[in-house]
């Protein structure tokens, strides 16, 4: 049952990305292009997505997930270099191609060669991140 609902959620996510136009890199780059021909669509997408999620989080209070287990606890507020530099690096790649991880998978069937290369490179980046992070964490920190 968990697998059915996971597949349903993934399918619904893909439907939303497709309907909203977020699988089109021009819309994403248009949103980020504040010095050019700015396209505000992404704000409507993010705003629309936050509304059901806001109510979903409220519904988690004092309850358990329908299929068992526990809801993910809120992680401690740790605004460290990994979060900030990682987000900046992600943003640079996001702007360069106009794709982020969700739309990269959702558009894989019709994204042609470029879509495939992006997804493979993303996987390589995710693999590289593991030893890179371990190495950076092992560096002595300035006192």
């Amino acid at each position: 049952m968990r697998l059915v609902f996971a597949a349903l959620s993934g399918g619904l996510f893909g439907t939303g990305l497709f309907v909203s136009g977020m699988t089109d890199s021009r819309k994403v780059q248009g949103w980020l292009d504040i010095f050019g021909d700015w396209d505000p669509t992404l704000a409507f997408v993010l705003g629309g997505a936050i509304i059901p999620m806001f109510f979903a989080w409220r519904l988690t209070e004092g309850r358990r997930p329908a299929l068992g287990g526990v809801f993910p606890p809120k992680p401690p507020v740790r605004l460290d270099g990994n979060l900030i530099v990682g987000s900046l690096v992600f943003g640079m790649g996001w702007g360069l191609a106009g794709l982020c991880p969700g739309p990269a998978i959702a558009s894989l069937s019709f994204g042609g060669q470029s879509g495939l290369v992006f997804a493979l490179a993303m996987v390589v980046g995710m693999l590289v991140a593991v030893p890179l992070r371990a190495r950076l964490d092992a560096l002595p920190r300035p006192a």
Partner: protein
Amino acid sequence: MLQFEWVTGALGGLIIGAAGALFLLANGRIMGASGLIGGLVDGSGRDSWKERAAFVGGLFLVPAILAFAVGGGQTHVSPNLWIVASAGILVGIGTRFANGCTSGHGVCGISRLSMRGIVATVFYLIGGGISVLLFRHILGVI
């Protein structure tokens, strides 16, 4: 003037939020694309790999069917494979260091009023803005 694309954007956004709400309330999991994929790729999500694979499978398959049935499957991603590969590597490394992307930090984090989600969103928007400014307007490669 309200444009048609803003309406479909908001409608698609509501569907994305409904997907995240379903995954949270049914499976008790946060719908973060980079985390779900990353856990499959580096083996850190080994104990939940079936659930992750089912999610990614649905995410791939349903838009494939939609694009085939109704058309409109256009990504307009650069044909320059060096640009595309560089962008993919940056997205892969960045999302794993930040522990999240647009769906995890943006959709699921902001809606929970998570400070980490809000800070991450601010910084990837800054990174994206700088990227388009640099590569489109200064270097002219995209």
